[in-house]
């Protein structure tokens, strides 16, 4: 068995590798405990100086054991070895250290550590500025911090939206009893804990509760909670963010501990919780002591040493020196003594420690050296010696001779810092408390309360009592229970403890600036002298010092270093810690994968794709698709070997010479009913609908209050007080909201209802000289003659056996029938029309050909030829503005403003390139004088541009200043590549200017 594994601890063997080395652990290990069991001292290199670093903590606070897990597509960077559960075949690598943790090129820089003060990178690599990118590349490569996977993530993730009455964060002693009290009331309870099993600190505790050993008590309580159907228990679940309105996010790791990749198993799940009430029972972090070379592998937190011994059966060393400012840490000496390994001495900074625990340690014959501090650790890749010296009562000076203690493990404890992170997320400002020597949660900003160690209550009895009260209170505030605790108080043995000493920087025989580095933030190599230097350089605000020194910037977010750092800063500034304040924690509490945040909204589910009833027919025909809003519309239907231009040329010629068919389903359709429908519609469109008779259609444009076009389409009168409004595809939802807005807020007296029928109707547009013949083959109950069914009329009828509405409206300028049927019959009718058109070589066409055909006719597309600054007059569409309407319409007043009447407004015109085959790029700027020096006077721009096979030349629509009075003039479009295209301003109607073809 491994060197450091205690013989009493057994379990199934697990094989894993670390930096390629094959090692063995035991079921239940974390990667950190397994590495320690195997005697792996160096797990990484520090960020800046590349100093060798070992495991320091045992949980979320770990600053050094940062690893890359796995390789290939599933690799995960920057995990904490203390939080990675061991599984068979686990592969882990140090993130820092290049080419390896044992031989590190950056270590050469590290040897010159004194040359790298805070702000080193800013100061050294800033100039010349253009080289910064080069410097940064090498600095980052050398400094490391993990590698992101370069392949697609093979795992699946999802989100779960949860609601509960009481969310308990943390399943240590306080959280467990809080959950029990809340559960009893019938409240919906969720209790989440980041560890693999519930129990928190009790998992490594030797204390007993209600006569049971802590672990057994936890097991009985977990079983009790499990019996409640109203309780949801989430282990391996980190509450990582606390947001407004009691919204909290939890990252649940479901398969990480199995090391599996399976598309069907959800690797991680983000719970998005709306909690009526929250109990924060997040515990506390032990605070390290800051002394010289306190970063050498073999220096650890006292509670971490106890945890490895008691929970994992790992003794991470042989000869322990315990260095403490408080009674609590003496437990570690007791725990270590039980392993049978040597406790060299307990070094206590206080003058005369004599609490119960101290007495118990002394009773074992362990040497307790009071009034002393460990002022320096010595060793290279492992602690070899501790230098101890007497220090003054204030803890500011070494006052006697230095002694050397041989040891290979220094456990240190500077007291405890409440884990106030989540409370801090809510905006509660932490409050410094001299009694606990730490920040307590500030005044609550949400429906939450803290209980136990995270509130500064560190004794077990106190945690249990506070947890129970908090649970009962939270349930009561959510409307459950009486608010008083119902279970008897848990019985625990009490220890008398003496006050701790507040000590944030252990003095050295040399001054801080001369002493070997005394590390405050291990991950980012921030030392006490660096903080003092920052103050000497003029930094005063804790927020500025944080950013200048990088204190708390690492993936551990300063969970260990922050308090010491702020205290050292306060001392350097000659002010109190309360005056200095603290930086505020923000989400995430621990790093969270993007996968869990994205959930299932990836790949084909990233954004909904909306399909028409004919979508699969289009796919079978090999259509290329275009995104129009969320719709997938056929763009063009290429035949074998055709280019896009070939296809649209063929499609466009077919429509003008025989017949084409378009899926126009995506156009927005709004059913409008009510006695005031006509009046309402007339106020919305710029033209009037009051006299539109049933069976008739009219084209209109809608303006915003500013007189600018925002949507257009045809509106049909279906019957008395009944209309159907067509909108653009992209504008459908916006227009419906617009109608509701005006009806509900401005004209509630108008009786009218709106209902979207976009999805109900499928629309097949059959257009071209042969369109009537095609329709006639599948429709026998409508008189299709031009006299009986003229342009801009619609008829009810039966098409291919299905009740249909047929509209004679045209966006191509050709004879056109738009056949609307309920969508369940959409494909049936479409295929019937295709079959009927076979003898005329009916040609399905897509949006590209649709765009070309309408441009040949000069029909605008709102949003392409207009951009929210175009009036009907600008579009040469004055005819669509009703001058005689009795009631105003939206935008009317604005059309009379002086700027609207300006003569040189950008106006819609046609452009015909002098070189017939040259197609102008859309968006090209228009100038009048091609020789003008840059910056040239921009006179307009091209809005639509195509090659027209029907006309045999390129066509474009453009908006040009004063364009309507410039017909026949030559303009120029200078392009980015330096050459210029000349074009003639012509009418925007290129084809069939008299509009005869659609009237046949």
């Amino acid at each position: 068995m491994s060197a450091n594994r205690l013989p009493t601890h057994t379990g199934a063997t697990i094989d894993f590798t670390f930096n390629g080395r094959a090692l063995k652990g035991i079921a239940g290990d974390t990667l950190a405990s397994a590495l320690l069991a195997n005697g792996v001292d160096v797990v990484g290199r520090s960020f800046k100086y590349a100093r060798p670093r070992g495991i320091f903590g045992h949980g979320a606070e770990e600053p050094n054991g940062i690893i890359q897990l796995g390789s290939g597509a599933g690799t995960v960077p920057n995990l904490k070895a203390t939080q990675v559960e061991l599984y068979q075949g686990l592969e882990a690598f140090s993130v820092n250290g290049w080419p390896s943790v044992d031989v590190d090129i950056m270590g050469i820089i590290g040897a010159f550590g004194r040359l790298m003060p805070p702000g080193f990178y800013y100061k050294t690599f800033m100039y010349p500025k253009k080289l910064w990118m080069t410097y940064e590349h090498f600095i980052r490569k050398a400094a490391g911090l993990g590698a992101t996977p370069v392949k697609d993530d093979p795992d699946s993730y999802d989100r779960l939206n949860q609601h509960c009455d009481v969310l308990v964060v943390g399943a240590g002693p306080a959280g467990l009893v809080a959950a029990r009290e809340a559960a009893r009331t019938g409240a919906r309870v969720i209790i989440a804990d980041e560890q693999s099993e519930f129990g928190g600190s009790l998992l490594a505790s030797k204390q007993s509760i209600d006569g049971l050993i802590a672990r057994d008590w936890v097991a009985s309580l977990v079983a009790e909670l499990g019996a409640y159907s109203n309780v949801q228990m989430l282990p391996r679940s980190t509450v990582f963010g606390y947001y407004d309105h009691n919204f909290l996010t939890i990252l649940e790791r479901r398969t990480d501990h199995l090391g599996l990749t399976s598309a069907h198993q959800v690797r991680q799940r983000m719970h998005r919780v709306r909690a009526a009430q929250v109990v924060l029972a997040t515990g506390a972090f032990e605070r390290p002591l800051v002394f010289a070379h306190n970063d050498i592998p073999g220096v650890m937190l006292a509670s971490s040493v106890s945890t490895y011994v008691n929970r994992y059966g790992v003794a991470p060393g042989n000869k322990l020196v315990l260095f403490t400012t408080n009674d609590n840490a003496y437990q570690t000496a007791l725990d270590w003594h039980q392993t049978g390994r040597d406790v060299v001495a307990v070094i206590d900074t206080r003058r005369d420690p004599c609490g119960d625990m101290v007495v118990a340690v002394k009773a074992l014959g362990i040497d307790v050296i009071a009034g002393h501090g460990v002022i320096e650790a010595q060793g290279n890749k492992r602690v070899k010696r501790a230098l101890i010296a007497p220090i003054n009562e204030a803890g500011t000076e070494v006052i006697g001779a230095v002694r050397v203690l041989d040891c290979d493990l220094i456990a240190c404890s500077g007291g405890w810092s409440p884990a106030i992170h989540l409370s801090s997320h809510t905006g509660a400002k932490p409050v410094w408390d001299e009694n606990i020597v730490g920040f307590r949660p500030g005044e609550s900003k949400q429906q939450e309360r803290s209980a136990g160690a995270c509130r500064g209550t560190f004794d077990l009895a106190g945690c249990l009592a506070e947890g129970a009260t908090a649970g009962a209170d939270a349930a009561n505030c959510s409307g459950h229970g009486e608010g008083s605790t119902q279970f008897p108080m848990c019985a625990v043995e009490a220890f008398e403890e003496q006050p701790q000493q507040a000590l944030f920087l252990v003095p050295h025989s040399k001054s801080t600036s001369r002493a070997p580095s005394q590390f405050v933030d291990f991950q980012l190599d921030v030392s006490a002298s660096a903080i003092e230097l920052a103050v000497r350089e003029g930094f005063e605000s804790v927020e500025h010092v944080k950013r200048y020194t990088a204190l708390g910037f690492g993936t551990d977010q300063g969970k260990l270093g922050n308090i010491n750092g702020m205290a050292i800063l306060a001392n350097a500034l000659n002010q109190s810690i309360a005056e200095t304040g603290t930086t505020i924690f923000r989400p995430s509490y621990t790093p969270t994968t993007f996968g869990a945040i994205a959930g299932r909204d990836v790949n084909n589910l990233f954004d909904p794709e909306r399909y028409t009833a004919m979508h699969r027919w289009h796919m079978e025909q090999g259509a290329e698709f275009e995104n129009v809003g969320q719709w997938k519309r056929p763009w063009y239907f290429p035949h074998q070997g055709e280019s896009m231009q070939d296809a649209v040329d063929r499609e466009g010629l077919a429509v003008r010479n025989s017949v084409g068919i378009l899926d126009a389903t995506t156009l927005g359709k709004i059913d409008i009913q009510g006695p005031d429908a006509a009046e309402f519609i007339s106020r919305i469109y710029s033209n009037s609908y009051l006299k539109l008779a049933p069976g008739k259609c009219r084209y209109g444009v809608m303006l915003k209050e500013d007189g600018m076009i925002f949507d257009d389409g045809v509106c049909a009168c279906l019957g008395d007080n009944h209309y159907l409004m067509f909108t653009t595809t992209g504008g459908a939802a916006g227009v419906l909201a617009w109608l509701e807005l005006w009806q509900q807020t401005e004209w509630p007296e108008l009786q009218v209802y709106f209902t979207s029928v976009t999805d109900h109707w499928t629309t097949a547009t059959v257009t071209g000289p042969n369109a009537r013949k095609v329709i006639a083959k599948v429709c026998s109950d409508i008189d299709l003659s031009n006299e009986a069914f003229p342009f801009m009329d619609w008829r009810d009828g039966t098409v291919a056996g299905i009740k249909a509405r047929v509209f004679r409206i045209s966006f191509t300028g050709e004879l056109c029938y738009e056949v609307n049927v309920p969508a369940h019959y959409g494909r049936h009718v479409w295929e019937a029309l295709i079959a009927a058109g076979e003898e005329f070589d009916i040609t399905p066409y897509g949006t590209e050909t649709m765009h070309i055909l309408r441009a040949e006719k000069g029909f605008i597309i709102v949003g392409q030829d207009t951009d929210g600054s175009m009036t009907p007059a600008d579009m040469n569409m004055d005819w669509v503005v009703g001058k005689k309407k009795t009631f105003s319409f939206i935008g009317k007043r604005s059309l009379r403003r002086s700027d609207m009447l300006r003569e040189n407004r950008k106006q819609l015109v046609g452009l015909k390139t002098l070189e017939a085959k040259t197609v102008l790029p859309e968006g090209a700027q228009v100038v009048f004088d091609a020789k003008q020096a840059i910056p040239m006077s921009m006179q307009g721009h091209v809005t639509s541009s195509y090659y027209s096979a029907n006309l045999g030349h390129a066509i474009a629509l453009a908006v040009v200043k004063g364009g309507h009075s410039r017909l026949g003039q030559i303009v120029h479009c200078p392009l980015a590549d330096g050459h210029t295209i000349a074009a003639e301003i012509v009418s925007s109607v290129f084809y069939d200017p008299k509009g005869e073809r659609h009237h046949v």
Partner: protein
Amino acid sequence: MSNAIKVESPLNYFHGSFNKSSASDSLFNNQVDCDLVIKEAPLSAHLNLRGDANDRNFCAAVAEVLDVSLPLQPGTYQRNGGSSIYWLGPSEWLIVQEGADPASLEAALRESLTGHISIVDVSGGQTCINLRGTAAATVLKKSSVYDFEGWDGATANSGSVVQTTFAKASAAVSNRSDGSYDLVIRRSFADYLAQWLLDAGGEFGCRIEQG
């Protein structure tokens, strides 16, 4: 040309689809044990009804024609046999009648209702799917932020309904007395939602059936 009229419900192309880890693709879906079974209802008449909830004659006439009382309590529905009325808003309801001809139903309603009302046939634009199985509630939690667990249970003739976001689309979700849920979804989003549900339900086993 065949004279047969081909009808395609919104989930037509998904009937028989399933997603389950470890299940072979060669199995027919009814051989796969699934904790989420999605069944698309047969084509039904769906009418959107607008009117004045304070007008007793209006409420009485609707109840008379459909033999279902008009739900006036927000977020509820009423059912009687194959006819259901879902409350969608203070003046808006969805009528679903299984196997009915929408045009005849609309005509019958127009015959009886007077005043300012609106009746719109939306049968082609939406479909009703039922989510059944032990994973149904969990899949709803994956898909929507609404608190469905907060609902009181449904009876055979009434229950709760909410129009809410569902994945990145929308749905009218209601509960049934057998513990399953009905969703009314839009046709154009049906493909997306079917893929979403198959994906979200995959870990439990999920299949889509024709009703």
